[in-house]
């Protein structure tokens, strides 16, 4: 074997050994650096969010790649939410993240939806959630999901049935909306004691369908609405009677005789209205009403 070939052959293992040695040194060194800089993941995430620039600033700097940057923020948001859900249940930067995300991609409906639901339920930032959704509504005028979510949050978390009904009604009028949205609107208005609006919505639902089952359901809800309205009116008359006389009447007929009401309305479920102490009640079994109130009609 010529000498230069021999020399070359001895150089190859030395070169490989040097490369492996170098890689091992770098690997060990990086491990040592990582160990000295190790901090809890939460701390790192919070720190990262603190320096995350606002969406208004980020939007122009990412030029035509705003959507892909929004996707990256979405992945970060999911990680942030998941981590805090499994650990301390603190979501202090959640609003900030979704603000950035929706500034980058104003049409990212799921970001508004997921952001608002997590803000409202997990972070307990109800107003922040509604603000995020209203911002989304301004940018996505034809999307039904966002007003529906505003309505849902008002209904469930704020007990503001009137506002909830208003937003459900808007959602129901938008294209491709979930078909039960109008029912939610009618139901919410009924709970808000806006009986006339609720009645009109139920009648609209009745007239808009040929589905016998849905029509039957609508009629049941109209009866329930009538019951609620009657109970409300009779209760007001009873309270009025008490304010004038400092005593409650024994029977409901007294309210008619003394001119507080014109007549006793017919109870829509076949029962009777009666006075029990300071309350007007119906003799219909609460089970019947309960079944209707919590029937799947609102979600099916």
């Amino acid at each position, binding site marked *: 074997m010529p000498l230069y070939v021999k020399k070359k052959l001895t150089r190859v293992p030395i070169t490989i050994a040097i490369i492996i040695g170098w890689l091992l040194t770098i690997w060990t060194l990086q491990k040592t650096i990582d160990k000295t800089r190790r901090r809890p993941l939460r701390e790192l995430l919070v720190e990262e969010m603190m320096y995350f620039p606002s969406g208004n600033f980020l939007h*122009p700097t990412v*030029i*035509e*790649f*705003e*959507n*892909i940057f*929004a*996707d990256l923020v*979405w*992945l970060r948001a*999911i*990680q942030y939410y998941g981590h805090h859900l499994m650990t301390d249940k603190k979501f202090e930067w959640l609003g900030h993240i979704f603000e950035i995300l929706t500034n980058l*991609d104003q*049409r*990212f*409906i*799921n970001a508004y939806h997921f952001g608002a639901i997590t803000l409202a339920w997990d972070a307990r930032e109800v107003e922040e959630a509604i603000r995020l959704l209203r911002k989304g509504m301004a940018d996505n005028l034809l999307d039904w999901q966002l007003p529906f979510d505003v309505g849902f949050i008002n209904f469930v978390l704020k007990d503001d049935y009137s506002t909830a009904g208003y937003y459900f009604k808007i959602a129901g009028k938008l294209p491709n909306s979930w078909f039960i949205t109008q029912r939610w609107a009618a139901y919410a208005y009924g709970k808000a004691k806006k009986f006339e609006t609720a009645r009109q919505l139920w009648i609209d639902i009745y007239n808009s369908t040929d589905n016998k089952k849905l029509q039957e359901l609508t009629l049941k809800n109209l009866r329930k609405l009538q019951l609620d309205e009657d109970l409300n009116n009779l209760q007001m008359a009873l309270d009025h009677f008490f304010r004038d006389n400092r005593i409650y009447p024994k029977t409901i007929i007294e309210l008619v005789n003394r001119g507080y009401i014109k007549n006793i309305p017919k109870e829509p479920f076949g029962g009777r209205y009666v006075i029990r102490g300071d309350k007007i009640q119906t003799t219909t079994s609460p089970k019947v009403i309960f079944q209707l109130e919590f029937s799947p009609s609102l979600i099916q």
Partner: protein
Amino acid sequence: MKTAVIALNTFREAIRDKLLLVLVIFGFLLMASSKIIKPLAVGEEAKIIKDLGLASIALIMTLIAILVGGRLVYKEIDKRTIYIILSKPIYRFQLLLGKYLGLMFVIFLSIVIMTGGYYVVLYFTQTQANLHLLLSVLLTYFQVSIITGLAIFFSTFVTPIASSIFTFFIYFIGHLTRDLKALAAISKSPIVKIVAEFFYYLLPNLSNFNIKGPLVHDVLINYSIIYWAILYSLLYTGALLFLASLIFRQKEF
């Protein structure tokens, strides 16, 4: 005919360029990475895959235009081949146009290959492949046409590195020209207003070509946007090549 010969030669030259290959492979890797991201996306897989594909195509094509386009004319000067070309009966404008068309053909081919790859990724990730997304690719091509024009324009009087830097800046600013319009609207100073308005119309408005967002979200777009953007691109690129040829004509070889 002479322009076509130069275009063909530019095309051959660019195809042999390793940079082009590296960029296209990088683009494919970017698109394929959506497969890794998919499990992390929580319900937004389709959106992310579509976004990543369109962004990769736009990024890679822009880089090809900036990096390859910036070297086109300079390479001929550097290698002294410009003397041989210009000693033939050819106008300088034909040389620039040939260079431009050659590179645009390379970009066209790269865009076709990358778009094919994009639809393969969409198919294998079971993402609904909407043909509307092609409209975004089409406008990316016409955006890149302006960027190529800019790169050639700069390459007639500065070095390739400077040309790439200038082109990149104009590309960046080109996506922010609407802010100039906003500045003109809110400014109280008439001089600022005039200057901002002037640059708003002078600089290429590249946001005209960005319809990726609405298409990914299946939002209906006004199709006239596309015709106007293509016309805008043709006019702007024509003006850039004309200016480039004016500068190039002044050069003494």
